[in-house]
C-alpha cells in the first residue's frame, strides 16, 4: 500500500487497469452502448407500430403526445406514487429484514430450514409470485379472497387488483415481500462478520441487548446495510412486473409509477416516447439516489 502512493498517477492507473478492464468491457459493451442507442431513439419520431419517422426534436418529451404532456395522464400523481413506492417499500423492507436477520442469527434447531423458507419469494421468480398473488386475489376464482370472506374479514370478495389504489398497495406489499429474502440475506451475511468476542466484552461491560445492537452490531452492519438499501432503492424504482401484473386497471390511472408508465407509453405511443420517459425516469432515479447518498454519506466508509 505504501509503494503505489509514491509512484506517478499514470502508473497507478496502468496498474489498476488489468483488474478493472473486464468489468469496463462488459459495462461499456452491454450497458452503455444500448443506453446511447436509447438516447438516440428518444430524439426520433416513431409510430406506435415502431416504424421510424424522422427526427422528433423535443416532441417525445413535451410535444402534443410527449412523455410529460400526453393528455389525461396524471403526471404529478404518478411522480408522487413513485416516491411513495420507493420510500415505503425500501423502508419497510429494511426494517423487517433487520428483525428477520436478527431472529435467524440465533442458534436454534431448524433455523437452517427457516432460512430456506424465507428464500421462497426469491427462488420463485418475481413474475410468478406476483402472478400467484393476482390469481389468489381475483374476486371469483381467488382463494385469498374466499379465505378473507370465510374468516369474516371481508363481507364480500373485493377486487384488490381491479382498482388503482388498492392495486397499488397490494403491489407495495408484494414488492416488500419479494425484496425481503435478498435484504435479509445480505444483513445476515453482515451479521456473521460481527465478532462474538466484542459482543462478549460489551456484555461484560454491562451493555444491554439493545445497547449492544445499536452501538456495536448496527455500525458493523453499516457497509452491508448501505449496499443492500441502495440496491433495493434502485431495484424497487425500476420494478416493472409487480405493478404490471397486480394493477389490472387499464390505462393511465393513478396506480402507476414512472417505470410502469414507460411500458404504457411503449404500447400506445411507441418507442420514441417510451425512450424519452426512460431518460426522464433515469434522471429521476439519479436524484433519488443522490438524496440517499447525501443523507448517508457512504463514501466516508468506502
Amino acid at each position, binding site marked *: 500500500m505504501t509503494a503505489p502512493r509514491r509512484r506517478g498517477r499514470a502508473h497507478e492507473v496502468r496498474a489498476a487497469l488489468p483488474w478493472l478492464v473486464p468489468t469496463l468491457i462488459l459495462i461499456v459493451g452491454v450497458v452503455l452502448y444500448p443506453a446511447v442507442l436509447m438516447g438516440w431513439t428518444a430524439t426520433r419520431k*416513431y*409510430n*406506435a*407500430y*415502431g*416504424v*421510424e*419517422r424522422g427526427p422528433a426534436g423535443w416532441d417525445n418529451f413535451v410535444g*402534443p*403526445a410527449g412523455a410529460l404532456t*400526453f*393528455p*389525461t395522464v396524471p403526471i404529478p400523481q404518478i411522480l408522487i406514487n413513485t416516491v411513495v413506492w420507493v420510500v415505503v417499500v425500501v423502508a419497510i423492507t429494511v426494517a423487517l429484514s433487520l428483525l428477520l436477520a436478527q431472529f435467524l442469527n440465533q442458534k436454534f434447531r431448524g433455523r437452517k430450514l427457516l432460512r430456506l423458507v424465507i428464500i421462497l419469494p426469491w427462488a420463485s421468480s418475481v413474475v410468478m409470485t406476483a402472478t400467484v398473488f393476482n390469481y389468489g386475489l*381475483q*374476486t*371469483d*376464482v381467488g382463494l385469498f379472497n374466499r379465505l378473507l370472506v370465510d374468516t369474516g374479514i371481508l363481507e364480500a*370478495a373485493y*377486487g384488490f*387488483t*381491479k*382498482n388503482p389504489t388498492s392495486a397499488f398497495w397490494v403491489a407495495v406489499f408484494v414488492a416488500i415481500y419479494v425484496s425481503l429474502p435478498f435484504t435479509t440475506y445480505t444483513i445476515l451475511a453482515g451479521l456473521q462478520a460481527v465478532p462474538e468476542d466484542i459482543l462478549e466484552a460489551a456484555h461484560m461491560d454491562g451493555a444491554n441487548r439493545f445497547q449492544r445492537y445499536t452501538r456495536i452490531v448496527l455500525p458493523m452492519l453499516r457497509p452491508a446495510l448501505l449496499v443492500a438499501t441502495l440496491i433495493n432503492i434502485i431495484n424497487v424504482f425500476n420494478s416493472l412486473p409487480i405493478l404490471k401484473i397486480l394493477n*389490472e*386497471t*387499464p*390505462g*393511465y*390511472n393513478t396506480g402507476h409509477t414512472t417505470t410502469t408508465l414507460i411500458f*404504457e407509453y*411503449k*404500447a*400506445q*405511443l*411507441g*418507442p420514441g416516447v417510451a425512450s424519452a420517459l426512460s431518460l426522464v425516469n433515469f434522471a429521476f432515479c439519479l436524484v433519488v439516489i443522490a438524496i440517499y447518498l447525501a443523507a448517508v454519506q457512504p463514501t466516508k466508509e468506502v
Partner: protein
Amino acid sequence: MARFATTGLAVATVVALALTGCSGGAAPTASTGADGTLSATTIKILAPSYSESSKSDWQKIITEFKTKQPNVTVELQIEGWDDFSSKVQARIQAKDYPDILNDNAFAGAAEAGLLYPVNEVMSANTLASIEPALLKNGMGTDGKQWAAPDIASSRMLAYNTDLFAQAGIAKAPTTWSELAADAQKITALGGDIHGYGLPLGKEEAQVESSLWLWGAGGDWVQGNKLVANQPAAVEAFTEMKKLVDAGVTQPNAGATNRQQAADLFNNGKLGMMLSHSGLLKETRAKFPQTKFAVAPIPSKNGDPVAFGVTDFILAFNNGDANRKEATKQFLDLMYSDSMYQTWYAGTGLLPVTTSMIAKGKASDTDNAAFYDALSYVKFLPVGDPKWDALQKALQGTAGTITSDTPENVLAKIQAQVDAQG
C-alpha cells in the same frame, strides 16, 4: 419432482440438438435447382399462440413445405397473445421483419411501406379462395390489399338458458331495454349471479364499446376521420354505465377481461355476455353443466348487430426475391384446403376460405349461428392507420366509465387520439 425435472432436461436437450442441427444447415450460397426447388434461404414466421396446438399446427405446414422446398429453412416463432404486440414492435424497430406475420392489425406497417401487397405473395387462385366479404377487411384506406385474413370470428350474445328459465325469461333480448330488464331479473336470482358480463378491461374494451356504439346506430368512421366523441358514442357509453350503476354487471366491469367474464359464464354465474366460438368451444368441452344458447346482439332499436374480427397474414418486404418466392409458395400451400383445414380448426375460430366456410356451415352445427352471422357482420376500421390510436385509447380509458361520466370519458379518449395527430 427432481426426477421429472431430469426427464424434462433430457427431452429438452434432444429438442435443442435437433433444432440446432436443422438451422445450422442453411448456407447462403446454393443455386436454384432446375426442378423448381429454390436455392437455400430462410423465411421467418411470427405468430401468436391461439391454443395449445398452435405450434404443431404451423409445424405441419412447415413439414409439408420442406418436402417441396428442402433448401428453404423456416424459422417459426410462436408467442403468447398477452405481449404479442410488443414483440412485433421490437422486431419492427430492430428492422428484423418476419417474412410472414400473423397479427390482428396491419395499417401501421402498410402505411410505413414495410409490406408486400398480398397479391404479390399469394397466387390469384389463393386470393380467390378467400371469402370476398372477409378479404375486404384486409384492404387499406388506399384501396390496396395489404393483408389477407386467415381466421375469422364473429360475436354473438351467449346466454345461460337455465338462468333465463329460472328468472322466467322466455326469449333472448333484442333491444337495450329488454337486455337491461333481463339482466335485472337474473341478478335478482341472488347467489353471486350477475345479469350481464361487461368486459371493459384493457383486452377488449374496443370490441365491447364498438358493439354498443353500433347498437346506437353510430360508427367510429365519420367522413374520412375516426371520431370518438360523438353523440351516438355518448348514448352507447351512457347505456353501459346504466348497467354498471344498476349493479347488474359483474363487479369491476372497467377492469374485467373477456376471459374473466367467460370464467363466470362457464361457472353459471353470468346470465349473458357477448362471446365467440372460441370461448364457447371451451364452455362446451369443459363445462357441460352450463347450458347456453346464442342470439344476435341486442341494439337500441332491436336491429341485430354482429361483430366480425379477422386476423391477418402480413408479408414483410425484406428486399430478397428468393425469400419473397418462398413466402409465396408457403402461403399458397397454407391456404390449400388440406393444410388450411387443420390449421384453422386448431385456432378454435372460423375459417375464411369459401370452401371451408361451406364445409363448416354443413358440418359444424355448434357454430351454425356464428357462420350465419358472418354474412352481416361489421368490422372495426382496422384498415385505417389512425384506428390504432383510437383502439389503444379505448382499451386504456373506456373502463373508467364505472367512475366517470360518459362525456368525460369520451373527451379523454378524443384528446388522446388528437394528441397523436
